[in-house]
C-alpha cells in the first residue's frame, strides 16, 4: 500500500501534467502509479480527469483555446494508455457503449474527438466511425453493436441538416437509443425539434457534458462499491 502522501503527490502530478499539457510528465507519473500498485481508477478520475476539468474551466474562461485543449488531451491519453490495462472493471449495471462520428460532408472532428476521449476515460466501449460518415452507417453500427448512445457531430451549418435524417432513422429502428448531437451550428432548439436527447454546442460544452456523464458514472461506481462493502 502506498501512503496518502504519495498518493496525493501522484494525483497532483497527473493533474498538473494534463493542465500543463506535459505528455512526458503524465507518462512518468502513470508508470509510478503502476509500479507502486496504486488504484488505476483513482489515478484516472482524481488525477487525469480532474486535470481535464480544470482545462475545461480555463477554456471557458478563454485562457485556453483549442490548441491547448488538444495538447492537454494528448497528455491525458499518454497517461490513460498506461493506466487503462490496470483498471479493475466494476459491474456498473450499464453496458456503456457508444457510437460516435462526424456526419457525411463534414471533415471536422476535433469536437468529436474530445467527447470520445471522455467516453474512453469513463470506460465506455467506443465505436468511432471517424469523420465524413455516410448517414446510414450510424444506424447500421448502432444496430450491429446494440449501443446505448449515438453521438453525431457537425461543425458546419451546411452538414448539420443531415443529422435529422439519422435521428429519424435511429428512432424508427430503435426507440430506446439515446442520441446526442453536437457542433457549432447546433442549438437546443434544433435538438428539441429533431428529437435528440442532448446537445453540445461547442467543444467546451461537449467537454462539460461528457464530464457530467463521467461524473454520474463515477457516482454510480461509488454506490456500487458502497453496496459491495455494506
Amino acid at each position, binding site marked *: 500500500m502506498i501512503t496518502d502522501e504519495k498518493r496525493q503527490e501522484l494525483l497532483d502530478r497527473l493533474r498538473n501534467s494534463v493542465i500543463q499539457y506535459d505528455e512526458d510528465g503524465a507518462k512518468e507519473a502513470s508508470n509510478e502509479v503502476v509500479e507502486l500498485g496504486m488504484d488505476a481508477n483513482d489515478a484516472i478520475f482524481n488525477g487525469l480527469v480532474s486535470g481535464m476539468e480544470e482545462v475545461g474551466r480555463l477554456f471557458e474562461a*478563454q485562457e485556453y*483555446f*483549442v*490548441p*491547448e485543449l*488538444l*495538447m492537454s488531451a*494528448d497528455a491525458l491519453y499518454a497517461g490513460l494508455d498506461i493506466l487503462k490495462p490496470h483498471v479493475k472493471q466494476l459491474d456498473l449495471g450499464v453496458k456503456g457503449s457508444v457510437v460516435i462520428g462526424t456526419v*457525411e*460532408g*463534414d*471533415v*471536422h472532428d*476535433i469536437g468529436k*474527438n474530445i467527447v470520445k476521449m471522455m467516453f474512453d476515460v469513463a470506460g465506455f466501449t467506443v465505436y468511432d466511425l471517424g469523420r*465524413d460518415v455516410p448517414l446510414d452507417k450510424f444506424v447500421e453500427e448502432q444496430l450491429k453493436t446494440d449501443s446505448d448512445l449515438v453521438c453525431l457531430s457537425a461543425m*458546419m*451549418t*451546411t*452538414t*448539420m*441538416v*443531415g443529422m435529422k435524417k439519422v435521428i429519424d432513422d435511429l428512432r424508427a429502428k430503435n426507440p430506446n437509443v439515446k442520441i446526442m448531437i453536437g457542433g*457549432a*451550428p447546433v*442549438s437546443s*432548439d*434544433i435538438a428539441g425539434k429533431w428529437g435528440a436527447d442532448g446537445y453540445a454546442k*461547442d467543444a467546451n460544452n461537449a467537454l462539460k457534458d461528457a464530464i457530467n456523464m463521467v461524473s454520474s458514472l463515477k457516482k454510480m461506481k461509488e454506490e456500487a462499491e458502497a453496496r459491495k462493502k455494506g
Partner: protein
Amino acid sequence: MAETRTMTPKERVLKLFAGEKVDRPPCFSGMGNATTDGLQRLGYKFAALHSNAKMMADVAAATYKLTGFECGVVPFDLCVEAEALGCEINVYAHLDDILYPTIKKKIIHNEEEMGISIPRDFTRRGRIPLVKEAIGLLKADIGNDVAVGTYVLGPFTLAGQIMELNDLLKLSFKKPEKVGNLLDILADAIVLCAREFEEAGADYITVREMGATSDVLSPRVFKNLILPYLKKIFSQLRTNTVLHICGKTNDIAPFMVESGASAISVDQKNDVAETRKKIDKALLFGNYDPYNVLVAGSEANVRQVIRKCLDDGVDAVWPGCDIWPTVPVENIKAMMDEVYNYRRPVPNKEEIKK
C-alpha cells in the same frame, strides 16, 4: 413596398466600398447563395455545379433574378485553392442531398512535409480557370445590375485543409515559426488565385479565414501568427476586399480592420453594436444567422433580425456564412423588403449633444 430609390444595387455596393455616401445599406453577400428554387428552375443538381462554369454562373444569377438579392457570387464550395495545390476533393456526386465538397486527400501528412512550394502552373490547375470563367459569365449576365463577387480562403483556413487541422493547431502553439512559413507560402498562392479572379472582373473578393475564429484560437495567436499574412494578401489585391471570420470575433475585430481589407464581415456571434464602437467608421458587414434565421425562421423573425442588424450599425446587411440552399424565397424577399423600408431611428436630443 418595393424599392423606390434610383441607385442601382451595383452602384450602391461600389460606392460603399469607395467610401462614398449611399442611399441605404446594400443587402448582399460575399459567400455562396445558391437556392434550391434556382436549382429546380434550371434543372441542375447541386453536386454538378462545382465543375461547370455555366451552371455555376446560372445558379448564382438565379438568386438575384428570383429574389432581388443584390449580388452574384461564385463559386459554391471552399476547395478551389486546396485542389489546385494538389488535394483531392469529394463533391458527393452520388448523393441527391445537398452536401458541400470536402477535401478527401491532403498534401501534407506530417510536420516534415510542411515546406511545400506552389506548383508553377498553379493558376491553371484544378478549378481556378473554371471559377474565372464563371465570374466572366456572371458579369455578362447580371454584371450591369449587381456587383459580382467571389472568394478565396485565408491562409490559416487553407492550411487546415491541406494538412490535419489537429496538427496545425498544436503546431501553432508549439512551433509557430514553422506554421508562419507555411502561411507565408499559402498567402502567395492565395494572392495568385485572387489576382486571376480580379482579372476576370470580380467587383469584390472576400477572404474567408474562419479557421482563425476566437472559438478556436486566442486573439494573441491571431495577431501574432495570422494577421501578418492577411496583411500581406490585402496589400497585394487591387479590387475591393472583405475579410470574413465567423464565430467569436469581438476581440479580434480591430485586428481584422488592421489587416487592410476594405470591409470586415462577422457572423451572429459578434455583438455588432460593441464592435462598431471599437472600429469607428470602418466598413462592417453582417451579421444575421443564415440558417436559424433566414432558412428556419419565420418571416416575422427574419424582419426583426434584419432590423436589429441595421440598428446595431452594419454598413451592409450580409449573412454570417453561406446561405443554405433550402432557404424559402419568401424569407429572402422579406429581408430585402425590410432593408428597402428601414429608416434609422432618429437620435434623441441627448444623443445628438454627445
